[in-house]
C-alpha cells in the first residue's frame, strides 16, 4: 500500500480512501491499534480487587481486571480451548470467568484455574500453565487512566504520552483527590470511519458555531465560550491549537471558565472553580491554573481517546470495520468536587453529550455522511483538505508543542493525519519518529 500518497501534510490533503478502504482499515488494525497504547479503563471503574471492565483494543475483545494486589491486568476475552468469549457482561466483579462452552475457568490473574473433568478427560496431562488467558503485552497507568498495548516493543506509556502530559494533567492532576469517570457507559453505533470523530474533536473548532447552532441557542446560558451562533462573528483568537506531541493534541480556550458555559446554572460551577483555583495554580502553575483549568479544552490521546474537562465528557471510539464505530462515553469528575456538583455534571451530560444529548445529536449524521461520501467509486479517488491556517504555527511561551493561534484552525488535524501516516508507514516501533516539539525546559518553566 502506498501510504505516502494517501496523506500530504505539507498541503493538508487526505485521500478519501482512508475513510473507506478495507485494505487501509486492515493495516490500521495492525499498525495503529495493534501498536499504540490504547485507553482501557479509568481506575475508578474498577476500584476493588476482582472488579472487571470489558472493552476493545481495535476489534479485539479485552477484559481489564483489578488484581488482589491492586495491580491491573488485561487479557484477550477468549478461551484458549475453543476460542469462545468468556465474559459477556459489560462490567462487574468476578472471582473467576468461566467459559459457557466446556466450563474452563480462569482466575482474575488469567491463570487457567479449573478444567472440568481434568482427570477423566485429560488424564491430568493438560499443562495448565500454557493455557491461561492471553495477556495484553503491556498495561500501565497514568494518573488514573489505564492503558494497554499489544506491542511489547512499544515505548513506555510515559514516553508515549510525552509532553502531552502537560495538558493531560489539567484534568488528571489539578486537585489532590484525583479524578473519576462516573455513570454507566453510553454506547452508540455510528456509521463513520473512526478517524472522523477524532479529527472532529481534536481540532475542529470550526464546526461548533454551525453544526451545533441549534443546541447553542437552546442551552447557552452565558456567552462564555466566545463562540456565537452561525460562524459569522466568533472570537477566533481566544484559544490555542496544540499539536506536535507524538500525535496527541489539545484544543483550548484560555479564559479559565468557558468549559462550564453549557450548564443551565453555571454559578455553582464557577464558584467551584473560584474556590479551587489557588490550589490548582499552586499544583500546575499559573499558566495552567489560570488559563487552562476550567476552560473549554479538548484533549486527544492518539489514536482514539478524547476528553473535554469542563464539558466533562470522556470518550473512546472502537472501530468496527472501515465504516462503523461504537462510541463509548462517560462523565468525568474531580474527586474533590462536592457530590452535588458531580451529580450535576452527570445529569447535564445526558442533556448535552449523552445518547440523547443536544450537542451529540448534531454530529452523528455529518460523520456518517463524510464516510458514506468517501465510498463511491469516484469519490474514493477524491481528496479532502485540512489546509486551514497552514504554516501559521510555532512555539508559544509557556506551552509545549507546535501551536497555532485560535480555536478555528486545522493545524491539529494535520498533525493527527501525519501521525497516522507515520504509523501506517512504519513496519515497527523503531521506524516511528518521536517528537515533543518546543518542550518546556524544566519544572520551573512549567510553574513560571
Amino acid at each position, binding site marked *: 500500500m502506498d501510504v505516502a500518497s494517501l496523506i500530504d501534510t505539507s498541503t493538508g490533503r487526505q485521500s478519501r480512501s482512508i475513510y473507506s478502504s478495507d485494505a487501509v482499515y486492515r493495516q490500521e488494525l495492525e499498525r495503529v491499534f495493534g501498536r499504540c497504547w490504547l485507553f482501557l479503563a479509568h481506575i475508578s471503574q474498577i476500584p476493588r480487587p476482582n472488579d472487571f471492565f470489558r472493552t476493545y483494543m481495535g476489534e479485539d475483545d479485552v477484559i481489564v481486571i483489578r488484581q488482589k494486589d491492586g495491580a491491573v491486568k488485561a487479557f484477550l476475552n477468549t478461551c484458549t480451548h475453543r476460542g469462545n468469549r468468556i465474559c459477556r*457482561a459489560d*462490567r*462487574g*466483579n*468476578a472471582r473467576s470467568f468461566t467459559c459457557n462452552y466446556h466450563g474452563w475457568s480462569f482466575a482474575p490473574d488469567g491463570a487457567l484455574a479449573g478444567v472440568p473433568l481434568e482427570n477423566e478427560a485429560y488424564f491430568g496431562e493438560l499443562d495448565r500453565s500454557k493455557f491461561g488467558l492471553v495477556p495484553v503485552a503491556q498495561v500501565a497507568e497514568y494518573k488514573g487512566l489505564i492503558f494497554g498495548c499489544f506491542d511489547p516493543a512499544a515505548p513506555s506509556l510515559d514516553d508515549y504520552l510525552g509532553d502531552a502530559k502537560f495538558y493531560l494533567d489539567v484534568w488528571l492532576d489539578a486537585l489532590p483527590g484525583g479524578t473519576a469517570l462516573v455513570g454507566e457507559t*453510553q*454506547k452508540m*453505533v455510528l456509521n463513520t470511519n473512526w478517524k472522523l470523530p477524532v479529527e472532529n474533536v481534536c481540532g475542529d473548532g470550526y464546526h461548533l458555531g454551525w453544526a451545533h447552532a441549534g443546541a447553542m441557542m437552546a442551552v447557552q446560558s452565558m456567552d462564555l465560550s466566545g463562540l456565537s451562533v452561525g460562524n459569522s462573528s466568533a472570537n477566533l483568537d481566544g484559544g490555542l491549537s496544540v499539536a506536535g506531541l507524538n500525535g496527541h493534541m489539545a484544543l483550548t480556550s484560555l479564559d479559565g471558565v468557558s468549559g462550564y458555559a453549557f450548564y443551565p446554572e453555571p454559578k455553582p460551577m464557577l464558584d467551584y472553580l473560584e474556590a479551587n483555583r489557588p490550589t490548582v495554580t499552586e499544583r500546575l502553575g499559573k499558566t495552567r491554573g489560570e488559563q487552562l483549568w476550567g476552560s473549554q479544552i479538548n484533549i486527544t490521546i492518539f489514536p482514539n481517546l478524547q476528553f473535554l474537562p469542563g464539558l466533562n465528557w470522556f470518550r473512546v471510539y472502537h472501530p468496527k470495520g472501515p465504516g462503523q464505530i461504537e462510541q463509548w462515553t462517560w462523565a468525568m469528575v474531580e474527586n474533590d468536587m462536592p457530590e452535588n456538583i458531580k451529580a450535576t455534571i*452527570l445529569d447535564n451530560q445526558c442533556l448535552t453529550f449523552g445518547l*440523547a444529548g443536544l450537542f451529540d445529536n448534531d454530529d452523528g449524521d455529518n460523520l456518517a455522511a463524510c464516510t458514506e461520501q468517501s465510498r463511491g467509486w469516484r469519490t474514493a479517488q477524491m481528496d479532502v483538505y485540512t489546509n486551514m491556517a497552514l504554516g501559521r504555527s510555532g512555539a508559544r511561551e509557556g506551552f509545549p508543542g507546535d501551536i497555532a493561534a485560535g480555536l478555528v484552525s486545522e493545524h491539529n488535524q494535520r498533525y493527527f493525519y501525519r501521525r497516522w501516516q507515520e504509523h501506517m508507514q512504519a513496519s515497527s516501533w523503531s521506524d516511528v519518529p518521536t517528537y515533543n516539539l518546543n518542550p518546556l525546559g524544566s519544572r520551573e518553566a512549567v510553574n513560571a
Partner: protein
Amino acid sequence: MLDLHPEPALHDVVTALTQRLFHEARLLDDERFEDWLELLCEDVSYHMALKSRRFRADRSAPIAVGAGNVFNDNLARLKLRIDRLRSGFVWAEDPPNFVRRVVSNVEVLPGDAPNETIVHSVIVIHRNRIDGQNRLLTAGRTDRWRKGGEGWRLAAREILLDHSVLPDSNVNVFF
C-alpha cells in the same frame, strides 16, 4: 396464586387512556411538540436510565454518583430540547425524518391516588433516515397519568430501552 387479576381499571378509563397514548404518539409523529407539552403535567418527570449488561449474580459495588441517564427531564428541560428542535439549526432533522410510533400493550392499573393510574405500554419507533436507513428503537414504558380539569395528563414516564448499544446516530425523538 399470583395477582392474576387485580381489579382492572374500568374499561372507559382504559379506552380513554389508550386513546390518549395513541393521540400522543400521533402528535409526536407529526412534530406537534407544543400540543404534546399540553399533555404533560407541570411536575412531569420524563426518565430513561442507562443500564449495562451485568451478570445476574453481579457482586460489584454500585457506581459512584449514579448510573446516569439518557433522559432525566422535567418540563423545563423537555422545553429546552424542543427549543433546539425548533431552532432551525438541527441539520440532522432537516429534511425531516419519517418517524412512526407504534404503541401497544396498553395496560391500565389503579394508581396510588384516586385521580391517578399506572399505565404500562410498549413502543416501537420506526425512523426512516437518509436514503435507505431504517432504524427501529423499542422500549417498554411505565407511566403515571393524572386526571384533572383537562382530562388525563402525563405525570411521570419511566422508559426502559431494549438496546445496550444505541443503534442510531442520535435520539432526536421522544418515547
